[in-house]
C-alpha cells in the first residue's frame, strides 16, 4: 500500500514537535498575561462607541433651553466638543454655523459642548462667532460618557437613529466631514 507524503514517520514526528512547540508558546503567553496584566487606564480614549447608541445627556444651553439628546431622534446630530482656548476648535465652529444654516432644513442639528471650566469666555465666544446652534457646558461626566475627551476638538456624528457613526479627533478635514454629513442626511 502506498503511503502518502503526510504519512511519512519523519513528517509525523515533525508535526508532533511543531504542535508541542505551539502548545508551549500559547501556554507561555497565557501565563505571561496572568503575571503581567495590561495596565489599567483611567479615561482612556476609545473609538468603541462607533456603531453604538449615543450616550444620552440632558443639559441646559447658554440660552436657557433644555437640550435632551434623545429628543434629537430623526435628526443627524453633529456633537462637537470644544473650548475657547482651543485654536483648531475656533477654526471649525464658524464652518459648523454655516452648515447649520445650509443643512438645518434637511435635518442637521449641531450641538456644541464646551469643555471650558468657566462659562464667561464661552458666552463671549458664542456671541463673537455668532453660533446659530445650542452650546452647553461640559464636564468630566459627559467626557467620560463619550469615551474620554482628552484632547480637543472631538466631533461625533450621530445618525437619525441615534447611532454614533463617526468619531473625529483633532484638526478635521472639513471637506471630508461635510461629505459624511451629507451622506448621513441622505440616509446613507
Amino acid at each position: 500500500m502506498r503511503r502518502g507524503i503526510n504519512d511519512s514517520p519523519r513528517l509525523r514526528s515533525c508535526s508532533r514537535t511543531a504542535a508541542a512547540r505551539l502548545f508551549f508558546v500559547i501556554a507561555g503567553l497565557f501565563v505571561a498575561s496572568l503575571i503581567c496584566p495590561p495596565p489599567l487606564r483611567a479615561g482612556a480614549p476609545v473609538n468603541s462607541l462607533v456603531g453604538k447608541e449615543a450616550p444620552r445627556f440632558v443639559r441646559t444651553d447658554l440660552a436657557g433651553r433644555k437640550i435632551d439628546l434623545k429628543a434629537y431622534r430623526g435628526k443627524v446630530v453633529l456633537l462637537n466638543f470644544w473650548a475657547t482656548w482651543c485654536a483648531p476648535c475656533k477654526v471649525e465652529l464658524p464652518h459648523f454655523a454655516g452648515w447649520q444654516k445650509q443643512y438645518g432644513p434637511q435635518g442637521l442639528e449641531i450641538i456644541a459642548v464646551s469643555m471650558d471650566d468657566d462659562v464667561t469666555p464661552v458666552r463671549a465666544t458664542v456671541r463673537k462667532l455668532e453660533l446659530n446652534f445650542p452650546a452647553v457646558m461640559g464636564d468630566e461626566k459627559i467626557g467620560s460618557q463619550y469615551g474620554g475627551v482628552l484632547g480637543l476638538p472631538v466631533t461625533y456624528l450621530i445618525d437619525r437613529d441615534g447611532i454614533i457613526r463617526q468619531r473625529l479627533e483633532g484638526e478635521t478635514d472639513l471637506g471630508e466631514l461635510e461629505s459624511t454629513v451629507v451622506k448621513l442626511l441622505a440616509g446613507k
Partner: protein
Amino acid sequence: MEPAALAKLLQAASGDRPVMLQVGSHIMFAQSHIPGSVFAGPGSQSSGLHLVETKVASTPRSKLIVIYCGCCPWDRCPNIGPVYKRLRELGFTNVKALYLADNFGNDWVAKGYPTDKGE
C-alpha cells in the same frame, strides 16, 4: 521631555519625584491625569498663572518641575508656553514641558502610561 522618559522616571523614582503640574483645564484633569500631578491651570489665563505661582510657592528653585497639558496638538497649545515662561521668571532652573505631540489621550493614556482621575 518625552512621555516615555517621564514614565520611566516615575517608575524608578521612589522618593525624589518631580513636581508635576497639569496646566490645562480642570475638566481634562478630572477625566484623567498623571498620578501625583496637581491641577494648576489653565496657563493661558491669568487665574491659571496665579494658581501655578501658588502651587510652587514653597518649591526649591532647583527642583525638577514637569508641566503638561495635552489639550490640543503641541504647536497649538495655549497653556504650556505662558507657564514655562512664568516659572523661569520666578527663578526655577529645572523646568521641563512634557511633549504631548497630539494630546494627552493619544500620547499618554493610549500608550498605557499610568493615570488617575478625579480631583
